[in-house]
């Protein structure tokens, strides 16, 4: 130090100070510039990240699970769900389901109940019955708009009315007008559904109607559509990812009766001697009626509806019947339902054909949290399954997209290593621009190279609103590629997944938790690796037939072909042709031997409606034509569709004054097996005062002003988000580093001068 001071003259000292000042200045400016540079570089992706689908634009149809919303003048409110009774009858290939929901209006006001509930995607809803107090109201099918008008009219007149509308092919809404204080409502819907078959196993699944804070999967939203909002409204949206954490211990059965007790009864008439019958998520009692018939009941009586009910059954024989043929005569037509399982290809075949697999992974903000973890785990598992002679590529997208390789590369260890590193480094961020990614994945550069089977594996939660655009892209560009949708997360857009897989002639796999990754991906790979049954066609020898699905899909291993047809006469045979791998396959079914089935016409119509919706999507039919087809089918077969609704109006005027409603009048309508005390509680019933319709003058129901139904299960406490940034920490650390560097710089300079 001293040496330095001695040697240095005034001039260098000054310049050194100036230099230091300059250095400070330069660093200050640079810090700001870098700050703003990162601002512009990072801004777009970071902004929209990790945000749920724009809930503000969601109507009741976007609710993913059942919930009863009581409409009050401030919007909708959750009401108490009292119970659900599910009664299923399996007759051979079809399931007839009767779902009865019992609700009570616990408020002291007249209310309109709006009830959103899920049903199986293939379900054909044809019956609505509403028991309000002591009245049974049966619904008629009407054009949607007309039904709405009728309903609104009855609502204004103070009549009890019920309306069933389809919001999505698997989501329906019931509206019930003019429920008096303390009244109990029974909502009964019936639907028809085909039995699912996979390999040796038959199954049915009932999505449960669930209270919002009960179920980890769905999003339930109450919607406030203001009359002057032009159709726009606000929602109180429900954060799916932390639902578990904000759910209080309301389910403790020791302290509470179940909030949504459910009773399930299945009459299983398989039509063949039964082997193993198994319920996957519920403990059941199985009663043998005869060889082919079982009566399945819940072992512990009522259960809280917190998961889907899944039942599978196998035949006693080693192999499931590979063919099923059923008929039904309705009106002047015969309906036919055929199940044909193609033979499994002999394993000893030559090596499977090499594949070209394009993996597409969604790393948009909506995938944040556990979804991206599942997606990455699934993709890394998939990479590990590739064979050396396969080729692959990885595309990731949010509102931008990147392909790892310019085109598909051999699946050697070097490429796989790079791909694994690429996938591991992904973070969920940004918007969801799915179409360009799908377009890139479907761009097939290897024309003429038909050695490789081309498959696109698309991992996403499907949280987009432009489904139609994606469907169009698939239809236009699919070429020889097959699209396998992997739905990630607790509430993927199932509608998008199934239809995209259908249009892309692939399959849909749902991965709901990290535990399922391996099992589900293995199942998916079994489909990817085994030759599909392709080029399927069906020909009727004598009868004139309207066959659905219009284009027979390709089948993967273990999947049966399910075919429905309307015939002018039940004669001759049907010939089904296809190719299994390289080999032709043909089977002929004589129609005369078909067994009697139930509800086949409805299944045919429902499937035909799906065809029309697909044709509309792919622009093979104009929207008008498609709508006409759908409307005609729906009205003929009494089905609820996008264009038709069931509406029921109580002709009798509303209950007279001074006639108190007692809940005890209702047990007649309660399904068997119900524990009344459990459902309604042991305590005194809600006092039911003589009822006076208020505001008779304006002819409108006075909607409940009470914001909180008495027994609503709400979170006890609110969990608060993290509300500190590391901005200051970073800035301070940055400043310290800058000062340090400056000191070091000065020190080195000084040493320089020293020498």
């Amino acid at each position, binding site marked *: 130090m001293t040496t330095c001071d001695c040697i240095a003259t005034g001039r260098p000292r000054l310049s050194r100070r100036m230099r230091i000042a300059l250095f400070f200045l330069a*660093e200050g400016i640079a*810090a700001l510039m*870098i*700050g*703003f540079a*990162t*601002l512009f570089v*990072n*801004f777009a992706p*970071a*902004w*929209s*990240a*990790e*945000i749920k*689908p724009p*809930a503000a*634009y969601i109507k009741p149809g976007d609710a993913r699970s059942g919930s009863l919303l009581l409409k009050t003048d401030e919007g909708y409110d959750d009401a108490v769900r009292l119970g659900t009774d599910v009664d299923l009858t399996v007759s051979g290939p079809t399931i007839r389901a009767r779902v009865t929901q019992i609700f009570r209006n616990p408020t002291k006001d007249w209310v309109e109940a709006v009830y959103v509930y899920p049903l199986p995607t293939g379900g054909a809803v044809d019956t609505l019955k509403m028991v309000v107090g002591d009245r049974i109201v049966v619904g008629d099918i009407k054009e949607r708009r007309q039904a709405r008008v009728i309903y609104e009219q009855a609502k204004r007149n103070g009549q009890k009315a019920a309306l069933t509308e389809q919001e999505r092919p698997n989501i329906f809404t019931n509206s019930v007008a003019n429920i008096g204080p303390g009244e109990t409502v029974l909502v009964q819907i019936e639907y028809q559904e085909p039995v699912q078959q996979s390999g040796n196993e038959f199954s049915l699944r009932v999505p449960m109607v669930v209270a919002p804070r009960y179920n980890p999967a769905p999003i339930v939203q109450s919607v406030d559509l*203001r009359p002057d*909002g*032009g159709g*726009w409204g*606000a929602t*109180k*949206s*429900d*954060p799916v990812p932390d639902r578990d954490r904000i759910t209080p211990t309301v389910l403790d059965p020791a302290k509470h009766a179940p909030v949504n007790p459910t009773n399930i009864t299945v009459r299983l008439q398989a039509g063949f001697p039964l082997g193993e019958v198994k319920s996957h998520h519920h403990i059941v009692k199985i009663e043998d009626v005869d060889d082919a018939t079982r009566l399945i009941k819940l072992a512990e009586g009522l259960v809280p509806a917190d998961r889907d009910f899944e039942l599978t059954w196998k035949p006693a024989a080693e192999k499931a019947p590979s063919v099923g043929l059923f008929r039904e005569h309705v009106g002047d037509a015969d309906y036919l339902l055929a199940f044909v399982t193609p033979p499994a290809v002999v394993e000893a075949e030559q090596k499977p054909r090499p594949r070209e697999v394009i993996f597409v992974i969604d790393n948009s903000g*909506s995938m*944040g949290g556990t979804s991206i973890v599942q997606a990455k785990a699934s993709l890394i598992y998939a990479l590990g399954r590739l064979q050396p002679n396969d080729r692959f590529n990885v595309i990731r997208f949010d*509102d931008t997209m990147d392909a790892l390789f310019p085109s598909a590369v051999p699946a050697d260890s070097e490429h796989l290593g790079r791909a694994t590193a690429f996938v591991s480094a992904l973070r969920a961020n*940004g*918007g969801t621009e799915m179409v360009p990614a799908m377009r890139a994945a479907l761009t097939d550069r290897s024309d003429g190279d038909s050695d490789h089977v081309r498959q696109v594996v698309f991992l996403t939660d499907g949280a987009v609103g432009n489904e139609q655009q994606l469907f169009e892209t698939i239809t236009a560009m699919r070429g020889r590629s097959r699209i396998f949708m992997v739905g990630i997360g607790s509430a993927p857009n199932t509608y998008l997944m199934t239809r995209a897989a259908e249009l892309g002639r692939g399959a849909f796999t749902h991965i709901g938790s990290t535990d399922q990754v391996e099992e589900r991906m293995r199942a998916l790979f079994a489909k990817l690796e085994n030759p599909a049954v392709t080029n399927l066609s069906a020909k009727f020898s004598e009868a004139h037939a309207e066959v659905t699905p219009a284009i027979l899909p390709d089948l993967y291993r273990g999947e049966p072909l399910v075919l429905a047809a309307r015939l002018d006469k039940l004669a001759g045979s049907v010939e089904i042709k296809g190719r299994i791998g390289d080999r032709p396959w043909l089977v002929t079914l004589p129609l005369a031997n078909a067994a009697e089935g139930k509800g086949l016409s409805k299944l045919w119509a429902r499937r035909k409606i799906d065809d029309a919706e697909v044709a509309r999507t792919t622009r093979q039919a104009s929207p008008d034509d498609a709508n006409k087809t759908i409307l005609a089918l729906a009205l003929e077969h009494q089905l609820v569709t996008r264009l038709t609704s069931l509406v029921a109006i109580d002709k009798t005027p509303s209950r007279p004054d001074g006639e108190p409603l007692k809940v005890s009048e209702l047990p007649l309508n309660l399904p068997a097996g119900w524990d009344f005390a459990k459902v309604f509680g042991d305590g005194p019933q809600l006092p039911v005062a003589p009822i006076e319709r208020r505001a008779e003058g304006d002819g409108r129901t006075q909607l409940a002003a009470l*914001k*909180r139904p008495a027994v*609503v299960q*709400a*979170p*006890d*406490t*609110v969990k*608060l*988000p993290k*509300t*500190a*940034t*590391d*901005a*200051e*920490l*970073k800035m*301070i*650390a*940055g400043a310290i*580093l*800058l000062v340090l*560097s*400056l000191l*070091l*710089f000065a020190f*080195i300079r000084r040493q320089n001068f020293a020498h």
Partner: protein
Amino acid sequence: MPRFLAPLLLALLGLILFGQGAYIHAKALLAQVLLERAFSKTIATGHPTKPWSWADTWPVARIEVKRLDASTIVLAGSSGQALAFGPGHLELTPDAGERGVAVYSAHRDTHFRFLKDVVIEDAIDITRSDGKTFRYRADRSSVVRFDASGIDPLSNGYELVLSTCWPFDALTSGPERYLLHATMIESGSSRMTTP
């Protein structure tokens, strides 16, 4: 110049860190400008308006504390990314002006920096996206753990809670939250009433 390498690297690292910090603040500031614009449009048109085309959230309310000249636009939802742009309206809590406890949450070092200056008796004005305004009076403050807030969103009063991280001047995030409780004292309607 190899001996200058170390200080240069150090300087670069410092710059990047500093820049990241500055970026968080710049983002918070700039977003509020866009949000203010979108919110005005929302009130004018009555339709939810996205602040920027790719946003997945939208403004739902404005919080004002006139005494402190503080004003900030609240977004729907409270995901981490939404909070980078503005305070979030917690899911499952009612809207301001409704029965129950509306909870808004924001970062202590950006949008809710003013919270430490709010004293009991201060008036807090909330403008909802439908144009209705509500005035709340700050009653009390409390410090709680994030998972034991003690807030029952369906309580019978008309209340408001503003929440941010505690302590205010800490550099790292902790489990404690500062809550400012307020009760509605008047509700007015600036534009329209819903029928």
